[in-house]
C-alpha cells in the first residue's frame, strides 16, 4: 500500500491482494478510491473486536426476524440465513446515473420486443433475429399471441444482473423477466446496516430505497383493468415450501395486500375471485410469484395444483391483470440475450448504453467449434436454467465434466450458450477479522408501470468462497448492502 494512509488503515488491509480484476475499493496502484476513504478510516478506527461484535449482532438480527431461504436438493425444508457481509458496496452518483439510463433503455426495448413478438413479430420479418431462435425457446407462450396487456406492459417487475469488468465498466450478465426475487434481502440489508453503522451511513449521504414496497404497490395499481378504480391487488405465492416464501409474506405485509395461494382463487364467467370469510371477493391485479407453467392447469401444466384453473381465460378477457405477463421468459432466454443490443437498436434506434457480455451461440457452427475447442477457458450455461444450476465453469472444471458438457452440447446445441470466464469486480469483505476481496455482482430492481422506476442500488451478491465466481444464494453466495451516494 502506498504511503499517505493512516497506519490503522494499513493494518486493516494486511496483505489484501490486488490483481487484474477491478477492485471496488482500491485503485490498481493500491490507493483507496476517494469515495471509499471514509469507510476505510471508520473501520480502521474501530477497536479490534468491535467489527466482529457488530457482525454478530447483525447476524442475530437476521435470525430472529426469520429471514431465511430454503435450499433445494438437500434435506427437505432446510432453512438457512442468507449470509450477510458487513461492509457496504458503494456506487457513486455518476456511476448510478449511467446504470439507471442503461437499464431504462434496456427494459423499454425488451418490453417493446415482447409486444412485437406476441403481435406482428415485425422484428422476425425484418430478419433481425432468426425466427427459429424465438419459436424454439421453451418460454415462448403461443397463448399470448394477439393478447392486449394493460398499458402494453409485459414486464412490470424486473431484476437484471450486472457485473463490473476490469476496465470499471458495468455490463449486463442477464435479465430476470419472469419472477425475480431477492428484493426483501435488499430491504433487510439496509435496515440492519442503518442500525449497525448509523453515523457512517449518515455521513455518506446515501439515497433511500425503503419506499420500494410502496412503489411496487403503485406500479401494480397502475396496471389494474379499466373501470376498477379501487382494485383488489393480491400476491400469488406457490406456498410455504417455496424458497422465497419469506419474501412473499414480507412484501404482502409491507404493501398491505392479501397473500393468496392458488387454492384461494376461483374463476367464474372469466372473473377471478378469492374465497374470504365474507364470501367471494373479486380480484383485479395479481402480482404473480408462480412460474408460467404452474399458473393455470387448463392452459399450462395440467398437473399443477399451485395455480388457478381458468386464470388465463380471465386474463385474456381483460378482467384481471397478471404481472409479470406470461411468456416474458422469452426475452431473458440466454441465447436471445446475445441479440439484445440489436433489439435495442431495432426498436429505439440507439446504441446499448450498458453492453452485453460476449456470448457464443452454439447453434452457429463456427461458434460451436470455437467453444468445443476452448471448454477449459469458457463458461457454459444451459439457457433455461437459473440460480447457478446447469453451469460449467471451464477453468474450475475437471476433464470429465468438460467431456460431459461437450456431449450435451452436441446433442442439443440450442440448449446452451458459452461466455468467456469473466474476471468481474471484487469488493472487500470481512472474512474472519480482516478484509479480503470477493467477487460481487449487482442486481438492481426495476419497476415498470406508468414509467420505469429503479430504486437506487439493489442487491449486491457476493461469492463468499475465496476465488469463487458464483454468487447465487443456493451455491454459497451472500450479500451486501448497496449504497448509491447522493451527487456532491
Amino acid at each position, binding site marked *: 500500500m502506498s504511503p499517505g494512509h493512516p497506519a490503522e488503515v494499513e493494518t486493516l488491509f494486511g496483505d489484501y491482494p490486488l490483481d487484474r480484476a477491478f477492485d471496488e475499493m482500491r485503485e490498481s496502484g493500491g490507493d483507496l478510491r476517494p469515495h471509499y476513504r471514509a469507510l476505510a478510516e471508520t473501520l480502521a478506527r474501530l477497536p479490534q473486536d468491535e467489527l466482529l461484535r457488530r457482525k454478530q449482532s447483525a447476524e442475530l438480527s437476521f435470525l430472529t426476524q426469520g429471514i431465511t431461504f430454503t435450499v433445494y436438493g438437500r434435506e427437505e425444508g432446510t432453512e438457512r440465513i442468507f449470509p450477510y457481509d458487513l461492509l457496504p458496496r458503494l456506487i457513486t452518483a455518476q456511476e448510478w446515473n449511467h446504470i439507471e439510463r442503461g437499464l431504462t433503455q434496456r427494459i423499454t426495448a425488451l418490453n417493446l420486443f415482447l409486444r412485437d413478438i406476441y403481435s406482428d413479430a415485425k422484428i422476425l420479418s425484418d430478419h433481425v433475429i432468426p425466427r427459429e431462435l424465438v419459436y424454439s425457446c421453451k418460454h415462448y407462450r403461443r397463448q399470448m399471441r394477439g393478447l392486449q396487456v394493460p398499458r402494453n406492459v409485459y414486464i412490470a417487475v424486473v431484476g437484471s444482473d450486472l457485473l463490473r469488468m476490469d476496465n470499471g465498466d458495468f455490463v449486463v450478465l442477464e435479465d430476470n423477466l419472469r419472477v425475480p426475487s431477492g428484493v426483501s434481502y435488499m430491504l433487510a440489508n439496509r435496515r440492519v446496516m442503518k442500525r449497525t453503522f448509523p453515523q457512517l451511513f449518515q455521513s455518506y449521504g446515501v439515497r433511500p430505497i425503503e419506499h420500494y414496497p410502496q412503489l411496487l404497490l403503485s406500479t401494480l395499481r397502475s396496471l389494474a383493468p379499466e373501470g376498477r378504480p379501487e382494485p383488489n391487488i393480491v400476491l400469488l405465492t406457490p406456498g410455504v415450501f417455496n424458497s422465497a416464501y419469506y419474501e412473499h409474506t414480507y412484501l404482502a405485509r409491507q404493501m398491505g395486500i392479501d397473500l393468496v395461494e392458488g387454492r384461494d382463487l376461483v374463476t367464474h364467467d372469466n372473473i377471478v375471485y*378469492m374465497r374470504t370469510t*365474507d364470501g367471494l371477493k373479486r380480484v383485479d391485479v395479481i402480482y404473480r410469484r408462480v412460474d408460467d407453467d404452474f399458473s393455470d392447469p387448463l392452459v399450462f401444466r395440467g398437473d399443477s395444483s399451485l395455480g388457478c384453473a381458468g386464470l388465463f381465460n380471465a386474463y385474456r378477457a381483460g378482467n384481471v391483470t397478471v404481472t409479470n405477463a406470461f411468456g416474458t421468459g422469452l426475452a431473458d432466454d440466454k441465447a436471445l440475450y446475445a441479440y439484445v443490443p440489436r433489439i435495442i437498436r431495432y426498436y429505439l434506434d440507439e446504441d446499448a448504453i450498458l453492453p452485453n457480455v460476449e456470448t457464443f451461440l452454439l447453434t452457429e457452427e463456427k461458434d460451436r467449434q470455437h467453444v468445443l475447442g476452448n471448454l477449459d477457458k469458457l463458461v457454459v450455461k444451459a439457457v433455461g436454467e437459473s440460480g447457478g444450476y446447469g453451469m460449467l465453469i471451464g477453468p474450475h472444471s475437471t476433464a470429465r465434466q468438460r467431456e460431459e458438457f461437450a456431449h450435451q452440447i452436441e446433442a442439443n446445441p440450442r440448449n446452451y450458450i458459452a461466455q468467456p470466464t469473466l474476471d468481474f469486480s471484487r469488493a472487500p469483505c470481512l472474512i474472519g477479522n480482516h478484509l479480503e476481496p470477493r467477487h460481487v455482482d449487482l442486481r438492481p430492481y426495476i419497476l415498470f408501470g406508468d414509467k420505469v422506476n429503479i430504486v437506487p442500488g439493489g442487491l449486491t451478491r457476493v461469492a463468499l468462497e475465496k476465488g469463487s465466481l458464483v454468487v447465487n444464494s443456493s451455491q454459497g453466495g451472500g450479500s451486501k448492502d448497496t449504497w448509491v451516494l447522493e451527487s456532491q
Partner: protein
Amino acid sequence: MLSRVADSLYWMSRYLERAENTARQVDVTMSLMLDTAGASAESRWRRLVAALGDPKGLDWNGDLDQMAQTLVFDSLDPASVTYAVNAARENARQVREEISTEQWQRLNRLYHQIHAPRTAARSDSNISDMLVTIIDGIHLFKGVTDTTMIHGQGWHFIRLGRYLERAYATATLLEVFQPNLFQAPGREDFGYQYLEQVGLLRCCTAFEAYCQVYTADLTPDRILEFLLLNRDFPHAIRYSVDGIRQAVTSIQRTGARRPPDELTAGIGRLHAMLDYTSIGEILAGDSARFLHNIRAQCLHIHELIYSYYIHYSIQSALAV
C-alpha cells in the same frame, strides 16, 4: 379475510389448546401414579387415554416411561404434545403475514425448545420439566396474541378455536372422570379419593379457583358444578361456550353477510342449555349423556362454521 387464513388461525389455536390440555393431563396423571395404592397404573393410564378422546395405539404396555415419552415427544403420533405443537407452528407459518412478529417468534421458540437435542437420557423428571416448559410457552403465546395482534376477525377466529377445543376437551374429561367421582370411598381410601379429585381439578388448572369459591371442601357435585357451570372461570365449560358465542358474534359483526340462522341457533341452544340448568338437575338425570350432548353440539357448531366461512360451495356464494 381469506378463508384459508381463517382456517389456519383457527387450527393453530386449536392445536395449541390441545397441546396444553394434553401436557397438563399427562403431568397430573404421572404425579397421581406416584401414590400407587389408590388405583393401578394401568387403570390410570387408560383413563388418561380415554380423557384424550381415545386415540389409537396407546394401549397400556407396562412401561410408563416409554409410553409417556410417546405421548409427549413422538412427533408422528397425532395424540402427542409434540405433534400438536408442530401442527400449530405449521399453521402459523402459512399465515406468517397475518400474525405479529412477537407471536411468530414465541411459537418458533417453543418449537425449537421441544426439538432441541436432549443430551441426557430422558427420565421422568425430564418429561415433567419439559411439560412445564411447554405449558409456559403456550401461556406466553396467548399473552402476546392478546397484546400484539390486531383484534380483528383473525383474532376472533383464534379465540373461537381456543374455546371450542377447550369446551370439547373439558366435556370429554368430565365424561370419563365422573363415574369414579361418585364412588363412595372406604375410610382408608379417603386420602386417595382426595388426590383424585384434586387431580381432576388440576387437569383444568382449577384447584385454586375452586377453593376460592367453595373452600378446600371437595365434593363431587361441587366439582362438577364448578367445571361445568361456573360463568367466571376460564376453563369451565360454560365460560368457554360464552367465549365461543362472543367470538362468533364478533366474526359476524365484522363481516358483511347475514349469518345463517342455523349457526346462531346452534350456539344459542348450547349456551341456553348451560345457562338454564342446575347441577341438581344434571345429576338427577343422565349426566354422562348431558356431557356427551355438549360434545356433539360443539362438533355441530364447528361444522356450521366450516360450511359457512371456510368450505362454502362456490355456487351458493355466487348466488348471493
